[in-house]
Every structure is written in structure tokens, then in C-alpha cells.
């Protein structure tokens, strides 16, 4: 149990997908102008990362490993991720057209989010069991969502702040992102004893 908890903390905070592994930076800068859009994107990405990781684990174990097709891993995972996004879109549309109207806009962006492929490759390299792999993917995506929401909150405040004209807009956002990354480095000092 302790191993699971440490793995969850490690995946979400210590080795954060955005601030430590530098994955998913496009959405990190592009969709964090408002907290609610960042949270919506974060939840959608969490869902897709977790579901596609489940599928990726099964494909790796029962197809690629079993038939010695490991060299096709990246291509296969991209296909699985695109299918997972399409599945999510079709399911949300079927489950509730209203929800699809509100949330469907995020889904095309997730297909090209490198965090999804990055997490899938990481969990395969970790040689984990199915539940551990799924929890690793879930924790990684929770860390992604957490950083998205925190950064969106900071950017909402930045809009109201008086910033020198030279730094207004993206420059000050990048500076804040670097400060946030440094703050997250503090998690690497967590003692596990």
C-alpha cells in the first residue's frame, strides 16, 4: 500500500508531467487563461490518459510483447490514443448531447497532447502490473490537472496586476511558469522514511 501511495505522490508531484517532464506544454500555455477552462481540459485529459493507458498496457502485454513487435510501440500507441479520444467523443455525445456541446471542444486538442503518449511510454518502461500502471497514469494526469488549475489561477490574477509593458502577456506568464516549476522542485525533497 505504501508503495502505491509513494508512486501516486511521485507521479503527481515529484515527477510532474508538465513541470518536471516538460510534457503537455502546448495546452499548459494555451488553455490556462481561465480556471474553469483549465479544469475542464484537465479533467478531459485525465480521462483520456487513464483510458488510453489501460488500452496501451493491454496492447503492449498481449500484442507487442507476445509477438515481438516492440519496434511498433510508438506508432501503435499513437493509434490507440487517437482511438481513445474518438471513443471518448462518441461516448460523451451519446451519453449527453448537452455535455458534448460544453466539453467536446477540448477533445481534439488532447489527441496531439504529448503528455498522453509520454505517460503511456513511461508506464510501459516501468514494467508495472495493470492496476499499478493505471494508477500511475491517473496520478500523472491528476498532477497535470493540478498544475493547469494553479497556473490558470495565477494567470487570472496576472491580468489584474500592473506588469511592465515589456513583460506583459506571454513573457510574464513564462516567468511565472518557471517560478512554479521551481516551487514544485521542493517536492523532490519529500522524505519517505
Amino acid at each position: 500500500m505504501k508503495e502505491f501511495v509513494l508512486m501516486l505522490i511521485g507521479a503527481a508531484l515529484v515527477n510532474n508531467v508538465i513541470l518536471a517532464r516538460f510534457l503537455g506544454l502546448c495546452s499548459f500555455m494555451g488553455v490556462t487563461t481561465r480556471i474553469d477552462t483549465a479544469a475542464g481540459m484537465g479533467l478531459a485529459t485525465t480521462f483520456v490518459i487513464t483510458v488510453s493507458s489501460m488500452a496501451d498496457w493491454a496492447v503492449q502485454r498481449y500484442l507487442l510483447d507476445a509477438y515481438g513487435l516492440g519496434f511498433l510501440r510508438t506508432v501503435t500507441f499513437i493509434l490507440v490514443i487517437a482511438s481513445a479520444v474518438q471513443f471518448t467523443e462518441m461516448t460523451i455525445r451519446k451519453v449527453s448531447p448537452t455535455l458534448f456541446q460544453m466539453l467536446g471542444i477540448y477533445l481534439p486538442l488532447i489527441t496531439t497532447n504529448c503528455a498522453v503518449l509520454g505517460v503511456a511510454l513511461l508506464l510501459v518502461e516501468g514494467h508495472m502490473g495493470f492496476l499499478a500502471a493505471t494508477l500511475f497514469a491517473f496520478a500523472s494526469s491528476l498532477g497535470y490537472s493540478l498544475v493547469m488549475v494553479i497556473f490558470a489561477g495565477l494567470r487570472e490574477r496576472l491580468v489584474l496586476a500592473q506588469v511592465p509593458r515589456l513583460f506583459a502577456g506571454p513573457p510574464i506568464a513564462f516567468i511565472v511558469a518557471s517560478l512554479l516549476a521551481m516551487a514544485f522542485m521542493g517536492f523532490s525533497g519529500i522524505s519517505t522514511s
Partner: protein
Amino acid sequence: MTPPIASATGSHTIEGIARVVRVEGLVAWLEPEQTTSCGSCASAGACGAGATGLGTVASRIAARRFPLDNPGGLTVGERVVVGVDDRALIKAALTAYALPLFAALAAGGLAQGAYGSDPLTLVAMLGGLGSGLLAARAGARRLDRRGDLAPRFLRRARPGETCHPGQEET
């Protein structure tokens, strides 16, 4: 979408611009003008966010058409500002994504604890995901009935008004 506007009741509204594409009696069908949540960038053609991307944007936008009561006599082609409560997006995302995900993880945890087998855990998680999606459908229907997710007509858009403050169309 523009920043949230506080109402007299203290709640906030997220505003967006939509165009009237059809009028049926007292109901107007609107199509959102915002094409992407990221506003799309110079590399939009590569990521599918732009109109020249994977060719699915038009169908996605068409699929996002929504009905609105038409008390103000809106006509086809008019641009209007609509709004939803800012908590609606979070409620919708939690219902659609968090509920199925937690159901899947709970089912997987129980199966792993009971059998300790990866294939069975996988099957249990898929079952949990399906159950969670059914629960999400029920939750979405409840939100629909309460009108929590319904956009409201706020006003007609000004000429050149966009969903990005300070960036008027030329």
C-alpha cells in the same frame, strides 16, 4: 469566452458569441463562433485546431449547435452573446469524466484485491467504466432537467465583437 461577469446574485457567467443558423417558431438554433478552446495558433494546421486541420472542425461545430428560446425575435445570421453559469462547466466535466473514472478505478481496485489477476482487473475496470458512463448519463439528465447546463441569451453582439476582449474583428 470572455472573463466571468458577476451578476447581482453573486454568481458568475461565462460569455460566448454564437450565430443564429436556424429559427423554428420560438426556438433559435445557434452555432458557437469560438472554434477552439486554445484560440488556435500558428501551428493550428498541424494539430487539427484550425479550419485547415484534419477537416473535422466543421462537423464538430455543427454537432455543437444548441437551441435557445427566441423571445427577442432573433433572425438567421444574427450574432448574439450567450452565457452559462461558470460552475456549469465544472459540473459537466465532473459528471462526464470524473464519475466513470472513479467507478473504473474502484472496480479495478476491488478486483485486484479479490483475485490479484491482471486480466480480471482489466475486465472489472471496463465494467466499472461502463457503469460509470451509465451513471454519468443519469447525472447529465438530472442537470439537464434542472437547466444547469442551458445557455441563456444575454444580448445581441456588437458589430465586430469577438470572444477575446480587446480583439475586435476588422
